[in-house]
């Protein structure tokens, strides 16, 4: 079999350049830690990786909504806890001043305190977070309670709902109507009480006690609703955390290179190149020219 010089030369050239190209490829993988950087590295894998990246972004969005919702609901719950405290105080005042032992002087002072507490309650109902009034259900740009105590009931009356998972929604709002005006207007009750206190009429004052009790119950029931919503959100949070980890793991399996494998491949490629170079030195070796 005739072996021409051109063939020998091309043989040597090819084996060295092929080894070198392989080495470059393995270096790239080892350095970046990724076995998939462009679609042709693994077409089916990159298609799945694309879907997983999209799902991860979706999970982040749910996570953001959950945090946002949770902080809003916590704020609402705090405001209602404070409102309950105020109503407890109101009840104390009403009770203390409904007996015969209280003086007109005391009753007047109490009336002033009731007015103050009423304003505090209105402020609490108009609690803001960011730009939104959190007790305003849908239309969160208008304060739900006017300064005179009228609750502006927005006709939409819907609860703010956000996505907290795939095909899963959570309610993240609280209602001024529900807490302060659902059957009994709490601010009116307080206003009536102040009037009765100033009129120094113990029977009238006593008559308010039932209403105050009802008002307290009303606020409490809204607070319970908020509590239920918060729990649902928290459960969803655990879910999104698990989902996020799952997607990350799946994607990493496709995209990332196994470190041990990458470095051993690199080492092997280096050895191959070394071998190719050494062999090529010998291929051109002895010929008749040496002995002529």
């Amino acid at each position, binding site marked *: 079999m005739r072996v021409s*010089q*051109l063939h020998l030369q091309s043989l040597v050239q090819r084996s060295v350049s092929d080894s070198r190209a392989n080495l470059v490829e393995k270096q790239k993988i080892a350095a970046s830690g990724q076995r998939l950087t462009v679609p042709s590295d*693994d077409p089916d894998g990159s298609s*799945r990786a694309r879907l997983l990246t999209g799902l991860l972004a979706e999970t982040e969005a749910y996570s953001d909504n959950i945090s946002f*919702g949770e902080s809003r609901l916590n704020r609402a719950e705090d405001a209602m806890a404070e409102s309950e405290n105020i109503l407890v105080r109101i009840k104390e005042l009403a009770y203390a001043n409904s007996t015969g032992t209280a003086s007109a002087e005391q009753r007047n002072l109490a009336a002033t305190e009731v007015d103050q507490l009423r304003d505090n309650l209105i402020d609490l109902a108009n609690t803001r977070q960011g*730009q939104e009034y959190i007790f305003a259900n*849908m239309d969160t740009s208008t304060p739900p309670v006017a300064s005179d105590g009228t609750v502006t009931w927005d006709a939409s009356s819907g609860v703010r709902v956000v996505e907290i998972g795939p095909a899963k929604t959570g309610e993240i709002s609280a209602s001024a109507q529900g807490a302060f005006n659902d059957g009994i207007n709490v601010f009116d009750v307080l206003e009536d009480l102040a009037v009765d206190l100033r009129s120094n009429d113990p029977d009238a004052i006593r008559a308010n006690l039932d209403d105050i009790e009802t008002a307290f119950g009303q606020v409490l029931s809204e607070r319970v609703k908020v509590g239920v919503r918060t729990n649902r959100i928290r459960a969803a949070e655990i879910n999104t955390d698990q989902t996020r980890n799952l997607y990350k793991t799946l994607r990493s399996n496709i995209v990332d290179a196994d470190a041990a494998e990458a470095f051993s491949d690199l080492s092997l490629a280096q050895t191959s190149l070394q071998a190719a170079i050494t062999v090529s030195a010998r291929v051109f070796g002895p010929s008749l020219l040496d002995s002529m």
Partner: protein
Amino acid sequence: MSSSLLDILNTGRSSLLAHQQAVSTTSSNISNISTPGYTRRDVEFTPIAAGGGVSASTIRNQTNTFITAQIHDQAARKAFAETQESSLSTIENLYAENEGNIGYSLDNFFQAMRTLSAAPTELDRREAMLSKAEELAQAFSATSQRLTDERRAADTQLDGMIDRVNELTSDIASLNVQITRLPEEARAALKDQRDVLVRELSEHVDISTFYSEDGSQTVLFAGGRPLVQKDATTQLSTRQESTYPYLRQIHFTNSAGATVDITSQLTTGKIGGIVQLRDSVLTSILDRVDALAYDITTSFNAQHQAGFDLNGNTGLSLFTDVPAGAPAGTAVAMALHADVDGNARAIAAASNAATAIGGNDNLHALSGLGDDSTLAGSNSRTFAQELADMVSDVGKAIETNDSTFDYADFSLNNLDRLREQESGVSLDEELVNMMRFQRAYQAGSKIIQNVGQMYDTILTLVG
């Protein structure tokens, strides 16, 4: 019949001349050891009938036409894949997970929508959604523009290739003329040159060749059409046929002077590679980008128009409108609609006028479009699935091209080795020959020496 001393002298002389010729041939082979495409010269010794002796002639080794034909075939295939490589590589980056690509922008857009639904009256979040919508439009536009640019670049390469083909064919034809005028022994070098040109030609288009009695080579291509016939050549040219100026067709001027469109016949070689890249590969990728842009635009616009913005307006579009049933060109023109551009209040978050301020039902419907598997891929996939399919498509196109190249390269290497084996120069062989012919030359000179001595002997007899 007896030979005279003169005859013997001539015999010796013929040996010297013959072996001188042989050494010259061997030297020629050794000098050309690095010349690519060189065909070995062999020495043929023929005994002279009258009076003994030998004559030598240098013959160019008969190339194996079967191997040559296969070499042309594989060279065409390799060039076919090689031509498309760099363009495909560029396109591939448009589908990697990089910022600014369609996938990345699509994810961000949906994320912004969901974030807005948590606080739909907040202007910051509205602005963010518009900004992400704009980025999505720009990603489509940039991707489509890039594909169009690559297609145009491919078309531009045609000029250089066609010019080269025309150059090669006219060079081959003029070599044909020269070769037919020379006697057999003098043709070798020109034949070598012609082989090199034909090899380069085979990289551009698929060819088949055969030799005629007079030594000229005929080259056919594209289903039997003649490129070179003895001294005549036919020219290739380009023509703009379609409405797109950079999708030119390749024409061939036949013997009757008429031009024929042969673009569809060019399926291999560099020119075939460009045609495939330009007309099938890039075009189908671009079509899918347009289709996805169209599907996204029409679905989102329809849903957005059904919703109400902060001012209670309805019927507003999110992206620039596209005419129904005409997806081509949607991607490059994709942008925010004038209804919402610069006006964050105009995002239709609510689903009825009563909840215009604070409602987010329409936003849920909009983000729900991402789960609808009838909206993309000819009513068979979600947007995300369609995009993922496009990614794997591009990946597969490149994988296929790479393997075509690798296989052709491997085959070509093998075939070259076979060719070299038959018609190449082996240093060892030539050196042995050189020693052999040198010895024979010495032997021939001995004959003359002896004849000389014999003459001396006779002359001495005479006086």
